[in-house]
């Protein structure tokens, strides 16, 4: 293990390490802690210039209440859900199929198709912007949740295919060969042999794609507008234009917007990290 395990060192070193941990953590999360403090402060504090002191009056979750009941925030949150959930499902369906095809079969175009997915996954969004926007307008899906979901599913399929294919490659191939010897149809091998083994990969992808799409901002402003369709990231920016100086509301709103992916991360931590660090270990 590197660095040297702390438990092998002197008592003094151990204690100072334990003491240092929270200090470094607080410094690291300082900007975030500031927002949390802002979100429970009353408006009057900002007027009187009491930015960093203790809150003048205890407001509790009043700012959060305002965000929830007196703004478009719930609408934006609901839109985010309507965009994110179908995207996650669509990606899982498409990429378990492409991953299966590229991970199990040997055929000439295999590596080329795989590289097409990988390369496409890295392109800058801007090179797609004008044509994708046109296509969405032509399909009569501009400013609809459907239009945004279709694009997200298509684009994320690149990353998901990379992920699935590598995962399936690591499965024991003998299982598939054994099934073939039994004369089982190929699609049944997919459904009854490979798919059950892909559960951890599907879980990892689901949390990752959820987070990516929930946090997407660029495509939201390119393909949608207004509170009827835009997700919460775009909602926050229009809030910002509206209440630029209303720090107490902005900070509460930001925290609400950030909460779903954070909750997802804590609930599914193992899968989340397994997904993000795919390939970091040989």
């Amino acid at each position, binding site marked *: 293990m*590197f*660095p040297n395990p702390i438990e092998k060192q002197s008592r003094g070193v151990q204690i100072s390490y334990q003491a240092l941990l929270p200090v470094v953590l607080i410094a690291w999360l300082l900007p975030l802690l500031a*927002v949390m403090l802002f979100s429970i402060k009353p408006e009057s504090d900002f007027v009187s210039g009491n930015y*960093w002191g203790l809150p003048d009056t205890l407001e509790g979750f009043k700012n959060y209440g305002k965000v929830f009941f007196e703004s478009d925030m719930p609408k934006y949150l609901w839109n985010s859900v309507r965009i994110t959930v179908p995207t996650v499902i669509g990606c899982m369906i498409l990429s378990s*199929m492409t991953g299966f095809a590229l991970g199990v079969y040997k055929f000439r175009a295999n590596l080329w198709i795989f590289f097409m997915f*990988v390369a496409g996954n*890295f392109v800058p969004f801007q090179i797609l912007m004008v044509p994708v926007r046109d296509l969405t307008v032509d399909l009569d899906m501009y400013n609809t949740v459907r239009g945004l979901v279709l694009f997200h599913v298509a684009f994320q399929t690149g990353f998901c295919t990379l992920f699935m294919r590598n995962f399936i490659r690591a499965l024991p191939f003998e299982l598939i060969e054994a099934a073939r010897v039994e004369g089982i149809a190929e*699609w049944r091998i997919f459904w009854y042999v490979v798919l059950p083994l892909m559960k951890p990969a599907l879980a990892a992808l689901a949390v990752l794609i959820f987070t990516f799409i929930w946090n997407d*901002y660029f495509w939201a402003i390119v393909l949608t507008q207004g509170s009827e369709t835009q997700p919460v990231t775009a909602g926050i920016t229009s809030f910002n234009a509206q209440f630029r100086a209303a720090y107490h509301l902005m900070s509460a709103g930001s925290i609400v917007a950030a909460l779903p992916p954070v909750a997802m991360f804590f609930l599914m931590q193992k899968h989340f990290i397994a997904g993000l660090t795919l390939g*970091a270990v040989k």
Partner: protein
Amino acid sequence: MTNTTVSDFEGPKRSWYKRNEIAVTPYLFLIPGVFFFAVYVIFPVFQSFNISLYKWDGLGEAEYVGLTNYQKLLDDRAFEVSLWNNLKWLVLYLLAIPAGLMISLFLNQKVVGIRLYKSLFFFPFVISQIVVGLVFSWFYDPTFGIFTKVIGWVGLEIKGGVLGNPTAVTYGIIAAGLWPQTAYCMILYLTGLNAVDPEQVEAARLDGAKGWKMLWYVIIPQLKPATFIAFVVTIVGALRSFDLISIMTRGGPFGQSRVLSYYMFEKALSEYGFRMGYGAAIAVVLFLIMLVFIAYFLWSMYQEEKGAR
């Protein structure tokens, strides 16, 4: 793969599909995914190349102008600023890799509660860049920002605040971007460190290696796969920077914090008018920069694939 020849002898009654099942199945499974990906990702790249040769407002007739858009880019001061800023992003963003490694080394211990510490350190990566941008614009605020206060204690002052100062602004935004990116690199290295071969470490320790020498000659070589991924995601992240600029400065002050991705958006889709052709030309330049890296990534993967089979 030999099954096909065997099954040919089973009689002529079997359908064509049954006889060619193993050859045909992968294509059937690929059709939906490849179709979507081609329509929404692959074709648009070529379409953008084409649009960049036109003068087009996005609604009326497009007028073919050849390479005029690219010629205009050469004289465009804003384009030049964006290109330089992209370079700053690319270089400085890479700091996330050593910073992430340092934090992961700090946290790679087994003490009570370390798991929670690791998750909390990773926090910035999970929240959206829009929120990160907001948080940092308050952090930098010239009247009450913590950053302004802290540098004030050592007698420093940045005129107009970090985000209002034409020289400081890009560095300020990059620093905000480094926060989540460092967290990402940290988690990659924590995973990598977990897999470091303890026997090699012990052997090196017996040979008297420790500290920096151990890190450089024994640990970092073993972390190579993690470093490669950290490099890939950091480069992609640097060239994709858009959200932070959009929420923190909208390219200002005086357009000094623009990068190509933001400038393209501004030209093609904003209050400054719909200059789709010109925007596409900017996007093509950005794409070509990315292409250098994409080629390198694919080449590395190809080398590995060759080794694997």
